Every structure is written in C-alpha cells, then in structure tokens.
C-alpha cells in the first residue's frame, strides 16, 4: 500500500493541509486506490507547505504548495508512483534546502509518524536512553558536558553544568521541567519538534531525570499551540502504554513520568522562575535569583528547567557521544542550531546547521531575501528581546559570542526579516510596548520603564526635544538593562538601542526637512 504523507504540523494546517488531506482521501476512494496516510511533522521547508510526500522505491517524492483543487491532477499524473507534475519537487531528501542541513535534533522531524513509537525506534529512537541506562547517571552528565550543549532557550547556559548542580543538590525529590513556552516572535522550533517527534523530548526528559535522580517531569506548553498539545498527549499516552514512562521505564527499574501543563498566555512565563511560579499555580511573577532553580525550583526542590531543544538533543548526544556533537560548531558554540527563518522572507523554514554560518548566508542564500522582493533593511535576531541587525553586519557569524560582541543575541535561533518599508522607530516603540504588556510587574525598571519608554519614543517621533529625549531613552534603556530582575526588562532595551544605533534617521523624521523623504 502506498504511503502518502500529509503533515499535521500547525504551519501546514494553517495553509490548508487538512483540506488537502480530505481531498486526497476522497479522490483515492473515488478511484479505488488504497493508500496509507501518514500524518508526519513538517520537514521545515515551510514555504512549500502543504508538502505532500509519496513513498516510492526511489525515495520520497514531494509535491509542494498543494491545494485541494490540485488533487485530481496529481492522481492523473500518477503521483502515487511519484509521477511528474508541476508541483513536484522531486526527491525531498535531495532538495538543497534539506540536503545541506545537518540534522541532529531534528533528525526524524518530518520523516516519521510522530505518535508511532515503532516508527521512532526504526529511525534510531531510544538508543540514547539505552546508552544512559548502560553507563549510569554520572557518565550521562559527563557526556552532556563534553558535548558542549548550551541551553537553547536563549541564555546559553551549559546544560551539563546545570544537570550536575541539580544532581549534587541534596533533596528528597527533584524535577525536570521542559520550558515549552516558546513565545518569541519568529520562533517555532520547539513547536516543530514536539509536533514532529515528541518521543525525542520524552526520551530526553527521561535521560535528564535519570541523570539527576528525578522521577517526575513537566512540560509547560504555551496555550497558543493547541495542535501541539494534542500530539504530546497522544505521544505521552503511547509512551506510558509501551512502558517508556511509568514505574519501570523500559525494564530498567527507573521510575519516571511526565505531565503536560498548559500556560495561559503570559509571555513572561517563558522566564524559568516565572514558569515555576505558574506551574505551582501562582501568578507568573519572577523570582529573585539566587537561589537558582537548580537549588530551589519547583515546589522548592532542585529542578532542571531546560528548553525543548536542549532536552530533545540529549538522546542524540547519548547515542552518538558527546564528542560527536561537539565536533560541530565554532568556538564555545558547539553543535548545531535549528535556525528559524521567518517574517518577510522568501524561503521561510527551519534549517538546522552547525553554528558559524554568517547572518548574510542565512538571510540571503538560504532564506532567499524578502518575500516582497524589496531590499532587506533589518533582521531581528532572537525574538522580541533581540537586536535589529542591519545588512552592514551580515558578515557576523551565527554563534553566541560573535553576536554578543555586537550587543545582539541569538536567543532561541529565530530570525525575522524586514524589508525597507519598516519604520524602525515604530519597531522600537513596539519593543517597549510589548514589554509593558507582558511585564510581570515585580521590578520597577521593567514595569514602569517600559511604559515611560513608549511615551518617550512617542515624543521623539512627534519631534519634541528629539536629541534630549533620545538621550533620556538611552539612559532609560541602561537602567532597564542593569536594574531589571529578569531578561524581559533586561533585554527589552536591545531592540530599542539597536534601532537607535543602526537606524538613527528613523527617529528624526519629524525634524528632517521634508525633501529628505
């Protein structure tokens, strides 16, 4: 029976995958063709979604941007045997966007049936956990440390050191918490891995739990991802049924289970201490650090809080060795990063590659420039708290340290492209406004500073005492950066300062002669 892949990824659904699926099923029934539908995740070639694939003896053949009205002609062209059709992109594995990637964390995403544990195992799933049980907790932490894996949520803290801190903290119980509150604009890697390969996260959390001596894990998922919650729920049930979770994980004697929790629309809950407060049932108010969550976390117990990508990379590190993972990347940025190319861009998608590509290669060569065809003016890297980077800095290599040098951050790996119609003063204003909307309110620089920031930018745009108000805004940014409790208030100045630095003309439109327009 021919396997036909129609993604259940949220992005594919957003452009009509469900209607395409219905059309394929209807057409197959009408023609008496028996097919097996697989609801895979997305390959990450997002501009081609819905990307329908057909399994043939030569490999999987893809048909991109399929509309329900294309389906009869696909059958006419013999697409079930990989027949030629204007929508065909040929073998998906040979598509340059796919073939040039180094897929480690996303190895199986888009390939397998995300909720079929047998398919997971057939594609190498489970080997990391088996290895972990073989070498014991201390060696697991050693491997993760050796791999150089850093927290993929944005802060980039070495994962091995965090795990060791929790493992060494004396306690009656410990916890593993997955931060799946992926709120940064321009990011969707967590969503894609959870929708496309949820077992890898389950396996990664289990490895972490085993390493640190925790028997309970939580996935704190944002409420904006309802499809993701469905996939995770199915996967957790399948894992429990098959003994991958429960009192005796895979016959090892190790007990571990995972509970899925849904957030409620607060961006700040992506900050780890706010997330823990929320998980405990409180307002998502940031905690002062120290104590670190590694010492005093969920229910005051030592807790590893890691991003989805961090935990989902652990199985590959265990299966292939820390040195294998560390062999990719540059400097202190080891391994691979799933880049998320988004916004006004021609070839938007997920592209996993070792650290070190330049920003220009990512935006122009891989992303193909803007969708509108106009020149790129700015790229916001690392979400709403990340800096706007102009094309003059496109030779910056994509790694933690190189970005820091330019007062920018790579964050969670999201890149949002803007064309030359963007008004950077308005983007700076939005940065402050967003911070004001989402501030938890605990510390003054963030709570009040963000509102004063919006007001000051409004004055600048109106042309009121422009230079002295710009100075005031810079001073405010400085206060927020160094006086805020967490990254929300602390990093909200990055988009503002970078806009001021690289696009000063946008803040002085009111005072410039009209001829300059």
């Amino acid at each position, binding site marked *: 029976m021919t396997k036909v892949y129609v993604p259940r990824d*949220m*992005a594919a*659904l*957003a*452009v009509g995958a469900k209607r395409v699926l219905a059309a394929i099923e209807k057409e197959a029934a009408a023609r008496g063709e028996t097919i097996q539908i697989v609801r895979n995740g997305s390959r990450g070639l*997002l*501009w081609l979604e819905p990307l329908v694939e057909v399994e043939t003896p030569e490999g999987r053949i893809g048909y991109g941007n399929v509309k329900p009205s294309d389906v009869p002609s696909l059958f006419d062209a013999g697409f079930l045997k990989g027949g030629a059709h204007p929508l065909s992109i040929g073998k998906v594995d040979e598509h340059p966007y796919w073939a040039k990637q180094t897929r480690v964390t996303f190895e199986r995403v888009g390939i397998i049936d995300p909720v079929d544990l047998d398919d997971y195992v057939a594609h190498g799933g489970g080997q990391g956990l088996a290895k972990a049980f073989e070498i014991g907790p201390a060696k697991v932490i050693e491997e993760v440390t050796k791999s150089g894996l850093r927290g993929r949520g944005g802060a980039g803290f070495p994962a091995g050191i965090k795990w060791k801190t929790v493992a060494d903290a004396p306690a009656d119980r410990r916890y593993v918490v997955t931060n799946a509150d*992926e*709120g940064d*604009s*321009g*990011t*969707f890697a967590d*969503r894609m891995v959870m929708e496309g390969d949820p077992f890898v996260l389950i396996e990664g959390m289990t490895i972490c739990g085993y390493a640190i001596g925790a028997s*309970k894990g939580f996935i704190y998922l944002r*409420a*904006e*991802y*309802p*499809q993701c919650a469905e996939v995770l729920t199915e996967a957790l049930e399948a894992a429990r049924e098959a003994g991958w979770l429960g009192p005796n994980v895979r016959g090892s004697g190790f007990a571990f289970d995972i*509970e899925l*929790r*849904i*957030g*409620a*629309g*607060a*961006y700040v809950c992506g900050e780890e201490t706010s997330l823990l407060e*929320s*998980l*405990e*049932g*409180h*307002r*998502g*108010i940031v905690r002062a650090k120290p104590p670190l969550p590694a010492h005093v976390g*969920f*229910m005051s117990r030592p807790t590893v809080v890691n991003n989805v990508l961090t935990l989902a990379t652990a199985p590959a590190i265990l299966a292939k060795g820390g040195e294998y993972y560390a062999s990719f990347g540059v400097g202190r940025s080891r391994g691979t990063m799933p880049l*998320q*190319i*988004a*916004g*006004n*861009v021609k070839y*938007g*998608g997920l592209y996993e590659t070792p650290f070190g590509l330049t920003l220009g290669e990512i935006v122009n060569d891989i992303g193909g420039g803007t*969708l509108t065809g106009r020149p790129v003016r700015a790229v*916001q890297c690392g979400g*709403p708290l990340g800096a706007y980077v102009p094309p003059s800095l496109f030779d910056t290599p994509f790694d933690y340290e190189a970005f820091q040098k330019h007062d920018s951050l790579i964050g969670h790996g*999201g890149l*949002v*492209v*803007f*064309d030359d119609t*963007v008004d950077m003063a308005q*983007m700076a204003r*939005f940065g402050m406004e*967003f911070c004001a*909307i*989402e501030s938890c309110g605990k510390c003054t620089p963030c709570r009040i500073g963000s509102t004063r920031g919006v007001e000051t930018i409004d004055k600048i745009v109106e042309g009121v005492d422009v230079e002295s108000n710009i100075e005031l805004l810079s001073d405010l940014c400085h206060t927020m950066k160094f006086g805020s409790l967490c990254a929300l208030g602390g990093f909200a100045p990055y988009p503002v300062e970078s806009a001021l630095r690289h696009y000063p003309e946008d803040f002085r439109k009111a005072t410039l002669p009209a001829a300059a327009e």
Partner: protein
Amino acid sequence: MSGAVPWNEARAQEIIDAHLGLEGPGLPILHAIQEEFGYVPEAAVPQIAQALNISRAEMHGVVSFYHDFRREPAGRHVLKLCRAESCQSMGSEKIAKDFLERLKLEWGATTNDGSLTIEAVYCLGLCAHSPGALYDNEPVGRVDAEILDELAAEARNS
C-alpha cells in the same frame, strides 16, 4: 467555540475536586472551568480559593494575571490575530486595523450579534506564514483582508 454550559456550582466543585491531586493544580483547574463554562465566572474564584486553601484575593490575582482567562463569556467564535514582529513584517498591523474598522470593533471586543470576538495574540509560531491567526483554535496563515472577511462571515452564519 465549544458548547459552554451555564454556571453550575456543583459541577464546578466536581471539576475542582478532580484536579486536587495534582502538584500545583491552580492553572489546570482554571483551564477546566473555562473549558466547561466558556469563562471563569466570578463565583468560581472564592470556590477555587477555598479548595486550594488560599485567600480569595490571591486567587483573583492568579485569574487576572493571565491573558487567557476570561472574566466574561466570549462570542460564539474567537479570532486571535497575531501582532508580534514577524507578522508586523508582513503588514499585519494595517490588515488588522482595517478589519477592526470594517467591523467597528476594538481589540478584545465582540460583534453586536455575539458571533465573533477578536483578540490580540503575540506569536502563534506560524512565523514563516505571517501574518498568522487562530480561529477557534484552528491555525490560519498568510492572513489577508479576504480571509478575515470570510472568517467573519462564517462566524455570523454559524
């Protein structure tokens, strides 16, 4: 949205009790209450507070902290339009502003016939298909005026 039922204290108590075994049951209870009744009724707040052995003020603080918990019922359908940077790069602000003007609505408001509530959301993870939206939890990518008008019409007629 889902077929929400009228407020019923006994039913609320069942929902609360069903979650009390969880570690940190606050949010799961609020989600379940909202799922059942379509919003978090004022009467539920002291009831949950009592079950969790916290003050009514503290529980009120939790409900009001999160954008997603409604204090009153929404329209029959809910459309969440993304206003974050990626969607802005594709002109979402103007598309949303024009749409709200056509419906004579503000952000967060419901149409007079009660068919559609329009809310702002900050990122749906559909950033390669910006502008993005969620219509009754169904994702919509590459949102434009035509798509929005179709959704509003669909909401009116269902």
